[in-house]
């Protein structure tokens, strides 16, 4: 899929642009507290939106399938401070088992 190279390369340059920009801005303009807080809020919002889409959306609609119990398993594990990899793997296993044994979507 050569077209995905556009996403990989342009995306990488886009992410790097923020990093290098931070080193090029003069220090006295840099530490504006409001802007730092805004970046934090935007990060929370984007990650939450991505979580919602990845757990509920299929095509152009909201769909309830095996991802729901899987994400609940992950939520409990994150709440119990399980390691990231463990929570992600058990979420995948939950969905896979429900699909395999119960024929869930």
């Amino acid at each position, binding site marked *: 899929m050569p*077209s995905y190279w556009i996403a*990989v390369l342009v995306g990488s340059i886009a992410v790097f642009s923020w990093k290098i920009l931070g080193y090029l801005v003069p220090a006295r303009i840099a530490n504006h507290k409001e802007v730092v807080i805004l970046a934090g809020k*935007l990060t929370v919002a*984007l990650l939450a939106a991505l979580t919602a889409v*990845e757990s509920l959306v299929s095509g152009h609609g909201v769909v309830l399938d095996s991802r729901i119990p899987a994400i609940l398993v992950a939520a409990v594990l994150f709440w119990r401070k399980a390691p990231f990899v463990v929570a992600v793997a058990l979420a995948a296993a*939950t969905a896979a088992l429900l*699909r395999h044994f119960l024929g869930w979507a």
Partner: protein
Amino acid sequence: MPKSPKSAVLSTGIGVGLAVGLYGISFGALSAAAGLSLAQTQVLSLLMFSGGSQFAVAGVIAASGPAGIVPAILSAWLLGIRNGFYALRLNGVLGVTGVLKVVASQLTIDESNAVSAAQDNTEDSKRGFWITGISVFVFWNLFTFVGAYLGSKAGSPNTWGLDAAAAAAFLGLVWPRLKGLQSNFIAVTAAVFTLLLVPVLPSGIPVIVGAPVAVGLVYILKRTRIGARLKEADHA
């Protein structure tokens, strides 16, 4: 014998690198399952080198295919903003010039900034940044390769629950940031707005519209009485 500060920074940096690097397995597997090649997956870890942004690229492309290319780039870009703020801080600490500035930029991520910021003197701050940055970079790329290899052998991603793994990965990334009423409010609002936009906007776009709108709403609410309560309950 108590550890000297120098070796404490070293072991913290390497420990963080190993722990974070392990997520690279999930990224590699998801990216391969999304339809990105092994090379594309590895280049993301080498060049983009920012977990949230990389998961966004893989997640959006998994959901939308080639139509997701532009939204994938925009989501990755928006999620990368915070690295810019770490860079502002680190520029004052590291005092790097020339090529080292470019190298430091690439290694500027959540973890290298966090370990650096946790040190109580400039020498250890510098050391913490470099050790953590290099160690995360090495382990993240190594485990990306392992994950991508396994993911490419796995067959249909949904059979293995890799779509659910993607959802869980984003939940895991947002979880530590959900501290306080205000961040919870932003998270829920962003999720709801985004889901409402799903039927009406092209694939991938709801996230990059819904999230900023939710943040904007918080700034508007702050001027009202409800907002005053949000503010009181949360100083973050």
